[in-house]
Structures are given as structure tokens and as C-alpha cells.
């Protein structure tokens, strides 16, 4: 049994920066994916909200405050469906690690579960509808399963990244049933869903930044 891995909650800024950076770097790609079967603004909307959120953060911030601030900024600034969904997602993730000194694998499991629940509750979509839930739900479940099977925090984070990628790719074969892309019915098959793609980017950045923080712990 390996000793339980963790990183200090005070390093929140590293995680938030990774989230903002991946959205900023991939905004054009996200809009292009959205353009194929949606209205082509997913990257624009997300970048606007994430950059504004970063501007509101102090240089040093604990993970809970950082995620809550990010979530609040998205709720306040970007509107649409993404504002409340990703906004509530990050607010709930932040809430699930509030008050903790150190973040370990179990905590991240609780965070993902809380985030997933609010997105399902608010958005009323299901796995298979070709939305970000097709990334989020299987990823949260795979992460939890790997912990349950005894994987280390860092191993579970790698599982998270792989599951997110598979979840994102799964949307390629789906027909959109909610959101703008449902306009196209069968014609929405064959391309990725934009929200599922941004969710993959975010979860991948989350996993990578946390693994980085774990590595720094030595």
C-alpha cells in the first residue's frame, strides 16, 4: 500500500491557471468544432469568461477559493448555457474542497461527483445526448472506480485524462439531442461535440496540473 498522495490546497493558482490557459490556447479550435454543428461561438464564450475570471483572482489562492471564484465569474459573465453549467460545476467543485489544508485523491473524487451532480441537475441532459456530460460522467466514474480499485491519486489522475479523451471521442458517433446541434438530427453525427471537447480540455488540464503539484511534493 503506497502512502496517500496529496498536495497543499494553497497551490490552487496552479490548477486555475492550467484551466484558463487550456481554454485560452484552444479557443479557436473549440469555436471551429462548435461551428460544424453549432453556432461557432463556444471558444469565444469560454475564453471571455475564463480570462475575466483569472483577472479577478489574487496571485496566490487556495484551490477552493480559486475554483469558486472561477465558477462565480463564469456564472456572472458568460451567460448562455455554459455560464450556469460550468459556473455551477466549478462552484460545486470548490465547495467540495472548502476548508481543507491538503487535497488528496478522495477529495478530488468528491469534487468531481459534486460538479457532475449540479451539471446534470441544472442542464437536464443525459449521457448520450452529445453534450459535455459525455465527457464528464464517464470520467468521474472511471476516476472513482480506479480509486476504488486501489490506484494512487496520481494514477487515478492519469485514468481521468484517458477517460476524458475517450468520453470526448465518444461524442463523434452520437446524434445531438439537446442544444443547438440538435437542429441537425442525423447530420450532427460524425463530428465532436464542442462542450464535450472543452470538458476534455479542462479535465485534462486539471489532471496534469494536479499531477505536477504531486510531483513537486516529491
Amino acid at each position, binding site marked *: 500500500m503506497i502512502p496517500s498522495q496529496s498536495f497543499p490546497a494553497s497551490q490552487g493558482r496552479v490548477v486555475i491557471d492550467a484551466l484558463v490557459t487550456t481554454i485560452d490556447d484552444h479557443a479557436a479550435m473549440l469555436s471551429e468544432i462548435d461551428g460544424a454543428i453549432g453556432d461557432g461561438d463556444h471558444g469565444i464564450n469560454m475564453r471571455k469568461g475564463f480570462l475575466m475570471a483569472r483577472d479577478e483572482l489574487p496571485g496566490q489562492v487556495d484551490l477552493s477559493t480559486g475554483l469558486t471564484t472561477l465558477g462565480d465569474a463564469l456564472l456572472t*459573465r458568460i451567460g*448562455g448555457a455554459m455560464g*450556469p453549467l460550468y459556473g455551477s460545476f466549478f462552484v460545486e467543485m470548490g465547495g467540495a474542497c472548502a476548508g481543507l489544508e491538503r487535497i488528496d485523491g478522495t477529495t478530488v473524487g468528491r469534487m468531481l461527483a459534486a460538479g457532475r451532480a449540479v451539471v446534470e441537475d441544472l442542464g437536464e441532459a443525459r449521457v448520450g445526448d452529445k453534450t459535455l456530460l459525455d465527457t464528464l460522467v464517464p470520467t468521474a466514474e472511471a476516476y472513482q472506480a480506479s480509486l476504488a480499485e486501489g490506484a494512487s491519486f496520481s494514477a487515478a489522475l492519469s485514468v481521468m485524462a484517458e477517460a476524458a479523451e475517450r468520453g470526448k471521442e465518444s461524442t463523434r458517433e452520437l446524434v445531438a439531442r439537446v442544444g443547438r446541434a440538435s437542429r441537425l438530427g442525423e447530420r450532427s453525427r460524425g463530428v465532436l461535440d464542442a462542450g464535450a471537447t472543452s470538458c476534455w480540455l479542462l479535465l485534462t488540464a486539471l489532471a496534469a496540473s494536479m499531477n505536477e503539484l504531486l510531483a513537486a511534493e516529491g
Partner: protein
Amino acid sequence: MQRIIDDPALVVEDMLQGFVRAHPDLVAATDDPRVLRAVGAPVAGKVGIVTGGGSGHKPAFIGYLGRNMVDAVAVGEIFTSPSAAAFLNAFRAADAGAGVACLYGNYAGDNMNVKLARRSAEKEGIRVETVIANDDVPSAPRDEREKRRGVAGEVLMWKVGGARAALGGTLDEVIAAAQKAIDSTRSIGVGLTPCTIPAVGKPNFSIEPGMMEVGIGHHGEPGVSVEPLKPARDIARLMLEVILPDLPFERGDEVAILVSGLGATPVMELYILFDHLATIATEAGLSIYRPYVGNYFTSLEMMGATVTVMRLDDELKACLDLEADSVGLRQLPA
């Protein structure tokens, strides 16, 4: 993209600034840059009327701020719901203690943001009730009316709700009148060309020349069919064939008819369409109490039109008849 804009990412901000400057008699800015209020709002003792939605639909939504109309509007990005924070601030700007009627359209983003804002408002002691417009018939079958989108029928809902509040209605009375208004209203749109969101830079969907999309939504949501473009007479008929049986409207009903352009269709054509609609409606035994023809709810530079029919009773007629002063709808005292 042939547009008169500056930074495409800031069109909403830039527009709002010009709008407030152009209509100081009617609208005022608030502390939230994404919320405008009517001059004089909140009106002591009056139920506050709030709406909100994505931008690009001029005169909706901010064009309906004004006397006997809407008190505060939450403003979103182009075709994107305003944030929950904006809705909350709009509730605050409209509430004079008598509560707020939030009359908005049925879109996923708006529903979520209103839901979140309403939770926060009620924590502050602001009572918010909602009417969710779902007048767009082609957007879902009749037995799933709760899934239908709100379109130009919202204008009549705001007129009724605004008037009922101005006439001294309680929050429950205002909500009941606005709910009756939208329950008595059916709409359909026909799209002839797409439109381009400035920040995106290319059309958000496509309609082939010579074709039209029947039942299209305000953001290019899918219609019920794409067919060859027909003469105005036939377009009028197929639009009414969808909406009249749905309520259903019946012989002897008094109705309001609202024809709105989607943006780039010359207003001349709206009158051509209206003439056929009036003929067909009259043949169907409806009597047209009040026609509205113009650009009431647009989608940037989309070509096409929406048709809205509302069955009237005495309360709805009194509400439609009340004078009103807003950019999008001005009615002088009778």
C-alpha cells in the same frame, strides 16, 4: 462580413452604450453593465416587469423598456442567454417591493440562469414569478408544449404583462395575465437567409437560394421543413395552417396578429405577407382586433418573417389597448 462595428467581441457593450445615449427619455444604465432599466423604474407599488435574452434581436429585448412596458432587462451576448448575475440585478432594478414578473422565452440557458437568479433573489426577499414564453409551434409537438421556444409572441406577452402591472395588478394578477397571453398565442417563423454573428464571422447555418426553412427559430434552430421558396400568398397559408389548428383558433375569435421581419427582409414584404394573412384569417372566421406589422423581434440580418396570432378576451384587449412608450412599441392614448 459587411458590418458597421468596432471590435466584434464587444458589439453588445458598444451597442448598449449607444442605446442608452440615444434614449435617455426611456432607458437608463444600472451598476451592472448588462442590465438596463426603464426611466422611472422601479415604480412605487407596481409589480416589476423583467425580461432578458441574448442580443441581436432588436428591438427585443431592451427596446421594450419603457412606460407601461418592461422595467428592467438582462442583456446577453449575441444569441446567448444573459448570466444569472444579470437576471438577478434586473430583478433588483425592477423590484419596488410588489414583486417581479420575469417574462422570458423558453431557452435552456435562460431557464438555467433565471432559475439560479431567482434562488438568489428570493434569499434577498425579492419575490420573483416567471412566465416562460413557448409560442413557437414548430419547435415541439402539441403534447410537448413545455419544450417549445419563445419567439415574437413575447412582445405581446410583455405588452400584456406591462399593461396589467401598470393598471395596478398584483404579482399574481400580472403573472396570470401574462400566462394567459402566451397560452393564447401561437407563432411560426420562415427563414430565407441565415445571419452572421460578428464574433464568429460566418453564417451560423445555411439556406440555399430559392429555398426557405419553415418553422425556423430565432437563432437558426431547425424548422419542420426546407422547401422551395413560394409566393407570399402560399407562405401565409402554410404558416397559418400550422398555427391556427394548434390553439385551436375558432370561428368568432377576436385576435391580434403580429408580423415581424427577421431583420433584412424589406418591410414592404411584411405588408404583402400581412395582407394574405388577414384574408386567410378572415376567411377562417377570425376578426382582427389589432394588427402589428414591422420589425418587432429580429435576428440580426436574417431574412424571413414570423407570424404570431393571439386570441383575445376583454382583459387582453384592455392590456393591448393601453398606451405605451418604448422604442419597439409606442401606442398613443386612444
